[in-house]
């Protein structure tokens, strides 16, 4: 697995927010996707859109509840089509399966179409370590491979980079003159990669869906690189999470409607490629071997947990990232692992361990915008709350990781709030402190005494560093009610 940096979330998000270049890139791309998505919803009509979402959700619920059956059916049909299905329980096993195929078939060059699961496995360094040259062929992935970075968005991996960044990168890594014309840069990448497609022995792809009834692998792309990677080399390996299985081709149609519309606002992508087995005897081209590697790597933990199971319904469209006001501020890298944004804040803790990623579920205002745009109606806020509950209360000490101070504060808070009398006394005391401002040297009132400014006491200080806090009024509502308001009623 790639290096886990989820524990550095706070520091990484502070740095991200202070990066104006990142902000500009995020503003431009993510909000553009959302505007286009809204057009597609309007075009379908919100009622029909909602019916599509429910239909897709129902299919996902059914499939995940019967995952054993559909994986078995998929196995039967991949095999019947002449392919090989491999199950990998973790990243090491998945990487070893791919490495074994590469070694035994004497693979020298591999081209890859975009695959988030291969990022999750950190497959590229494993292949490189056995002497395989690996080329990312999705333009965004190619850019971040050259930059030796990781994706910052589920569908737009190089979203954090401006065209100037890319022009600089191309100039440095490819030894060409600096040219920030997007068309020229795309043409350069195309030229480099075209040769590699022809050279490659092995094509590696992800899968947006795998269809159990036919054993087919489905990928949707806009660049055609997926089709070249899966058909030109003599071996094709598809790698994906085991939750990507859907029952039938008929079920596929609803997902093909929802995924591009939700991801980029396109009605359909330029390419929808379906691969079933290797080339047959009467086919003119296509790979001699077809392998499908289905990865667990922590997914059974999600499956086993009824509160988090629906994270497995995700089709990785990225709509929740595009709408998320937190993602819009900090981008994808701050999340510290492969899957960013709201869905990443659920998936990453489940895959890398909640203790290591305990901040991710907290880093949300729970505004619910992600649930509203999710094409599968995944209730992300409810899962974030469940993860917070586990952090606070799990009997398993490997999971329960909320700081002791928070636990004490929560108990104090509930004791205070359990007694109106105690609460009144506390508020009265605070009011007294406020009146005799001199004995409260750590929180400063503004001149008009209406606001607290520049408090030095946390957590107040964390509020007043950029916002004022209203000072306590002379009376509480309870006081006013008792003095005058309660008697108004006849």
């Amino acid at each position: 697995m790639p290096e886990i940096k989820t524990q550095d979330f706070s520091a990484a998000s502070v740095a991200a927010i202070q990066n104006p270049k990142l902000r500009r890139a995020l503003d431009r791309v993510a909000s553009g996707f959302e505007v286009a998505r809204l057009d597609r919803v309007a075009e379908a009509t919100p009622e029909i859109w909602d019916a599509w979402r429910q239909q897709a959700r129902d299919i996902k619920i059914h499939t995940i509840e019967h995952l054993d059956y559909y994986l078995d059916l998929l196995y039967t049909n991949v095999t019947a089509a002449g392919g090989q299905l491999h199950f990998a329980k973790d990243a090491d096993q998945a990487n070893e399966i791919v490495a074994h195929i590469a070694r035994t078939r004497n693979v020298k060059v591999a081209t890859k179409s975009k695959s988030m699961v291969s990022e999750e496995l950190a497959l590229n360094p494993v292949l490189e370590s056995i002497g395989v040259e690996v080329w990312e062929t999705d333009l965004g992935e190619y850019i971040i491979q050259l930059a030796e970075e990781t994706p910052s968005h589920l569908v737009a991996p190089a979203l954090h980079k401006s065209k100037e960044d890319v022009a600089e990168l191309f100039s440095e890594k490819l030894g060409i003159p600096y040219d920030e014309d997007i068309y020229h840069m795309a043409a350069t990448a195309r030229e480099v990669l075209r040769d590699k497609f022809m050279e490659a022995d092995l094509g590696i792809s992800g899968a947006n869906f795998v269809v159990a009834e036919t054993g087919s692998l489905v990928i949707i792309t806009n660049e055609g690189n997926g089709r070249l990677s899966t058909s030109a080399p003599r071996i094709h390996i598809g790698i994906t999470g085991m939750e990507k299985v859907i029952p039938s081709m008929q079920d596929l149609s609803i997902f093909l409607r929802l995924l591009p519309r939700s991801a980029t606002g396109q009605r359909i992508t330029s390419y929808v490629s379906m691969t079933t087995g290797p080339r047959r005897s009467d086919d003119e081209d296509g790979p001699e071997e077809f392998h499908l590697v289905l990865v667990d790597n922590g997914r059974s933990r999600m499956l086993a947990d009824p509160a988090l199971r629906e994270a497995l319904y995700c089709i990785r469209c990225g709509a929740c990232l595009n709408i998320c006001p937190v993602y819009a501020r900090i981008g994808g890298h701050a999340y510290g692992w492969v899957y960013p944004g709201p869905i990443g804040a659920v998936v990453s803790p489940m895959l890398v361990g909640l203790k290591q990623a305990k901040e991710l579920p907290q880093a949300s205002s729970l505004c619910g915008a992600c649930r509203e745009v999710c094409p599968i109606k995944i209730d992300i806020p409810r899962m974030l709350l469940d993860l917070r509950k586990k952090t606070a209360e799990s009997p398993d000490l490997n999971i329960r990781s909320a700081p002791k101070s928070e636990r004490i504060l929560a108990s104090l808070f509930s004791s205070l709030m359990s007694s109106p009398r105690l609460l009144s006394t506390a508020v009265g005391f605070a009011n007294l402190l406020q009146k005799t401002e001199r004995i409260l040297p750590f929180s400063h009132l503004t001149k008009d005494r209406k606001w607290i400014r520049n408090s030095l006491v946390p957590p107040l200080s964390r509020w007043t560093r950029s916002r004022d806090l209203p000072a306590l009024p002379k009376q509480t509502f309870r006081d006013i009610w008792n003095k005058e308001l309660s008697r108004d009623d006849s």
Partner: protein
Amino acid sequence: MTATPGIRADLYVTCIIDQLYPNVGVSAVKVLRRLGVTVGFPEGQTCCGQPVYNTGFQNQARTLAKRVLAQFRDSEYVVVPSGSCAATIRVFYLELFADDPELLAEAKILASKTYEFSEFLVNVLNVQDASACGAVHKGTVTYHPSCHLLRELGVKTEPAKLLSSVPGLESRDLNGAEICCGFGGTFSVKFPHISEGMVTDKITNVQNSGAETLVACDMSCLMNMGGALNRQGSNIKIRHLAQILDSDSD
């Protein structure tokens, strides 16, 4: 006049209004009374438990939720001048007591009679026009739909309907209205840098709306936006919907 006399409603004032914005509670009571409602205030009420629920401390949240269940057991209606606290009672209590059939049944009864202020006016009292409560407002106003009100309770049209019918009030559109203001309870102090970023975007849009007053149905969100506006020296006022319907009493 559309109000139905003879309705009894208990006010769940919320801690933030009780302790920081008591006048909002006073306005809510006055408006309800003008509409013929007999208003009660169960005095043992404190916090609904949302801060501890949201941070994952569900045991502590249950302790507080049980108190709310007891305080409002005999209420005919419970009116909450906060989308967020109303959502806690209506939505989150059902999760909190999912494994306790007895308390779940009680929570469901409470949920069925609990309303956020604006939806109580429009959907229970059938107020179609804010002049029914004698409201007048001179000036320009923009409305921020708070997230829990909008997305947990699905209350979208009611506040706008009430606001637009206030004589003298001029509405101004708010860009990115449905984007969170960045409050999020403990989120605002756990990740102040992100929260500040969000509220900065929000108040920029508020300022660009050209409105003199920012209205919402949640004082917590208004405290966040108002605190940021004040720090920037802005003169834009923050008001709860109840204050506007009470003719902008301070």
